[in-house]
């Protein structure tokens, strides 16, 4: 039998190597071509590894404990990483169309992709922390890249919060290490399940939740997070929100895997559900108030984070399937919306009051944006409908109809604000001069291509949701626990 080499670490290492090279050649002329090649090669990466546990440096089990750093790879993680890489490559392709694209932007984007994949893959708390920090810094950098004064300010605020949350997360990991003597998540869960709780473990749980909130933008960090989405370039924001959601899925699954089924987890479990509800409602209410398209979309990103978190926090197998599926759908349609915002702001600006009458100018783009808008509001036959249905079902199964009602209400709010934005951008009558101005400004073909790919995916997943769900289900069954209120 031929032993096939397990190339799993390449998912992380290859983008990192390329990121350093891109940073080195940062103003060369071939950067566009190289970035295009890079974007194409990213998509192959998730298929390189083989399923199972991977030990770094061959440090596997020793005297009953995993001594080194371990990665766990399975179909669910594969599909998350595939979507991540797909969005990454589409954003890179969109970035090629920018006038001042440079190696530094590509480099930061790749670093972020690699680190988020590492967070998703890792079965080791400290490794998760290290790459989580890299993602925080990368996000700051990507916001600053847009170069406006507001971008600087919001990035600075994000960094201040990041200092606090990051150091608390590290403290929490130190607590858990001291209480259990290991950093590997599977080992740690075994230890926690067989030993009584100590206050140190409570400390670890508390800090993990704070870290989760910062990394994903759940309240009270939602204002900071929405601000950085809004101040970044819109196509960069589509990457930023993808990072946040992937981190949310990864860390939430870590918390569930560590503490799931333990008696003292109940209150924290309630807190997680409450946080996700807050995220949903606060996001959508703030979004309804915005008059800036980018800001509106960024608050919706927060609201969707709340949905994903709600699904995962319910913690039943169905809930986890719904949560991960919603996260994947969300990567797709939210990125499509942000790319749409990119196209719109290339035409004129992102201020809703100044826009209007764009429908006759670019009907195809308008149709694609409308598809994404319907997907985010949960209208069949788009993918958002499938996952929101699953989420509501999961909430009903644990005997929490109130949660399902809140989800539906928030969906209604989403629909209203999305339609408001659609009206103000595309349908509102506008003057002749403005139409002339629209006709002179050009939109890059690259961003329309990316938008089209994402729209097709939206419809595809809406009609055949089983492609994704079948991949996730085994992993969800492994982690989830059945309970009712």
């Amino acid at each position, binding site marked *: 039998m031929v032993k096939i*080499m*397990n*190339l799993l*670490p390449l998912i992380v*290492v290859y983008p*990192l*190597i390329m990121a*350093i*090279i891109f*940073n*080195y050649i*940062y103003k060369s002329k071939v950067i566009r071509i190289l970035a295009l090649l890079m974007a194409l090669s990213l998509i192959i990466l998730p298929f390189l590894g083989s399923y199972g546990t991977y030990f*770094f*440096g*061959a*440090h596997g089990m*020793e*005297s009953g*404990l*995993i*001594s080194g*750093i371990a990665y766990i790879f399975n179909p669910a993680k594969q599909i998350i990483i595939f979507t991540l890489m797909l969005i990454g490559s589409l954003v890179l392709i969109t970035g090629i169309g*920018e006038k*001042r694209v*440079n*190696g*530094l*932007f590509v*480099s*930061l984007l790749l*670093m972020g992709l690699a*680190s988020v994949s*590492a967070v998703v893959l890792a079965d080791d708390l400290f490794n998760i922390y*290290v*790459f989580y*920090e*890299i993602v925080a*810094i*990368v996000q700051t*950098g990507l916001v*600053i*890249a*847009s*170069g*406006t*004064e507001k971008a*600087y300010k919001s990035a600075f605020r994000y960094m201040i919060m990041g200092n606090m949350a990051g150091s608390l997360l590290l*403290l929490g990991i130190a*607590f858990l290490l001291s*209480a*259990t*003597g*290991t950093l*590997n998540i599977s080992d740690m869960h075994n*230890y926690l399940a067989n030993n009584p709780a*100590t*206050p*140190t473990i*409570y*400390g670890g749980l508390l800090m993990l939740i704070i870290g989760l909130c910062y990394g994903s933008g759940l309240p009270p960090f939602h204002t900071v997070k929405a601000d950085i989405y809004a101040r970044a370039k819109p196509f960069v924001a589509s990457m930023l929100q993808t990072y946040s959601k992937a981190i949310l899925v990864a860390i939430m699954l870590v918390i569930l895997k560590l503490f799931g089924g333990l008696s003292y987890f109940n209150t924290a479990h309630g807190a997680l559900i409450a946080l996700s509800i807050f995220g949903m409602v606060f996001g959508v209410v703030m979004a309804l108030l915005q008059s800036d398209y980018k800001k509106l979309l960024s608050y919706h990103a927060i609201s969707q984070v709340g949905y994903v978190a709600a699904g995962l926090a319910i913690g039943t197998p169905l809930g986890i399937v719904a949560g991960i599926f919603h996260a994947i759908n969300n990567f797709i349609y939210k990125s499509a919306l942000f790319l749409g915002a990119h196209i719109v702001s290339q035409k004129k600006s992102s201020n809703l009051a100044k826009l209007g009458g764009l429908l006759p100018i670019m009907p195809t783009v308008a149709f694609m944006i409308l598809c994404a808008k319907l997907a985010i509001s949960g209208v069949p036959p788009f993918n958002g409908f499938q996952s929101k249905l699953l989420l509501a079902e999961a909430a009903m199964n644990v005997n929490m109809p109130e949660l399902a009602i809140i989800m539906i209400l928030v969906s209604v709010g989403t629909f209203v604000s999305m339609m408001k934005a659609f009206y103000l951008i595309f349908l509102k009558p506008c003057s002749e001069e403005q139409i002339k101005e629209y006709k002179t400004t050009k939109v890059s073909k690259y961003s329309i291509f990316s938008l089209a790919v994402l729209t097709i995916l939206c419809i595809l997943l809406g009609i055949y949701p089983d492609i994704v769900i079948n991949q996730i289900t085994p992993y969800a069954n492994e982690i989830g626990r059945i309970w009712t209120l």
Partner: protein
Amino acid sequence: MSYINREIAVSLSFMFFGAAILYSVYNINVVEGVNAIYTHSYIIPNFVTAVLFDWRGFDTLGECLILINSVLVTGMVFGRGLFNSEFLKEVYGNQKKLNIDEIEGFTPIIKVLAIPMSIILMILGVYVILGGHITPGGGFQGGSLIAASYILAIVSFGIRNCPINFNHKFLETLESFGALIFLILGLTGIAVSGYYLLNIHSLFGMNVFPSPTGLENAGIIPYLNTAVGLKVLAGLSTITTLLSSERVIVKNISD
């Protein structure tokens, strides 16, 4: 009026939070766990370095990348690779030369002492990097020592007449090179056995890092140490250069 209420709320919540943390810290009861494995299997004399570069080498790689990223982002704050540099132009463009670059530095006494001290400090840094796998020390510490010698020189001479001339291209090359060595040494591990960052002791019958008896297991650790050292020195020096000079910003926003 409502500030009072808010202050009370904040102080209460900090009290609870602080009490919770103190309660946790007070009840720490360390379980040995995986630590026993680390301390009982001998790789190299310095167990800390053994953990950092052998057992958990991938984490160290991540930490290096945090530093690299911070340097990239610091560069970005100062105008490198922005999509739109109008804000920086507004701040720095019109201003007629508040030039930090032309500050002459300190008194002659300090200048006389600074060069020998920074040279010795530099060599000490190299020594600390090299002894990383045997004595307490290693790449991070040694690299910071070398960066400190550079900072000493900059502080005493000013950036224009600085005797140690780490120009930007040199630092960038050093940093990329250091990180690439780390990443590619890891890849050789995959090529040899299929495990990333495997500590290879010998290749084709030759010791990877020739060392005296008792240290045969060092393998790639000294190389990793050197790579990290170069990278840390380059990263910290880049940040120093950026923070101490306006030239970089003016150059960045001019094109």
